[in-house]
């Protein structure tokens, strides 16, 4: 076969290869976006679970009336209307992110109410709980 004939026969093959590479790169773009979205969603879910855990731990300390224990556990500082703490959710994991925990305390007779709000580092509220402590209440 002559050189011209070989060129004519390999041209469609090269064309197909080019189209295959183009299609593959387009598909990879879509796949990478899907994977990134899945990763982001998974990280958000982990952070949300950790936020629920942290907020319920804080609520349990406060509803038991253990403000000192709460401050020690969360390294929280007392503010004018309650408490404020900063920390890290999912520490050591890929979904690691900072959080800010603010607690507003209200007293009314025997009842002390704590409004707990946990926000992520972007200021987005992840969970907000209400805990209440009754003076004089206790387990048998």
């Amino acid at each position: 076969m002559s050189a011209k004939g070989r060129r004519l026969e390999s041209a469609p093959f090269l064309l197909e290869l080019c189209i295959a590479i183009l299609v593959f790169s387009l598909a990879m773009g879509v796949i990478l976006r899907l994977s990134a979205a899945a990763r982001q969603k998974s990280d958000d879910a982990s952070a949300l679970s950790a936020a629920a855990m942290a907020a319920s731990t804080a609520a349990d300390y406060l509803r038991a009336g253990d403000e000192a224990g709460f401050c020690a556990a969360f390294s929280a500082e007392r503010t004018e209307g309650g408490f404020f703490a900063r920390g890290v959710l999912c520490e050591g994991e890929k979904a690691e992110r900072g959080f800010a925990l603010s607690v507003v305390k209200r007293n009314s007779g025997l009842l002390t109410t704590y409004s707990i709000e946990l926000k992520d580092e972007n200021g987005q509220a992840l969970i907000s709980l209400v805990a209440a402590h009754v003076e004089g209440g206790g387990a048998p």
Partner: protein
Amino acid sequence: MKKQAPNQRPLAFSVTAGAPSVLVVLICLCLTALSVLSLIAAGNEFILASRTVTETERYYQADAEASAILAGILEEYRRTGTVPSIEGVTFARPEGQIAANGEESPAFLAEFDVPCGENSTLRCSAVVYPDGRCDILCWKKVFSAEQTFFDDSMNIWSGE
């Protein structure tokens, strides 16, 4: 050297034509399927975490309401010395509560339920003393009777 017959065409191109395309399409299909599956799994994980957050918020909301009711009972009893009348709260004398002098103890049992989500309630009962103290006997989330979560019985035809 053997000569090629005039009606025979070289096989080199016909064998390789289309093979890269098929391979690329298969690889893309597999990767897309895996990506979509991981996205669905992550979405489900997020929905579960959101439900956990919602349930936690509901529980603590109900807990705070129950604490407010209990605080109201304690304050009222300490202030007036009489068993208060609050809607939704039942009052009874606790069994075996006899004072040292043989008279009936002034303590009473308060029981109430606070709704906690669609199918559950927070059931609370506490013994309240005249000095504004109380002993909590029960403080737990219970599912309503209509809910049949755990009914995994099989309906098997047993004949006419």
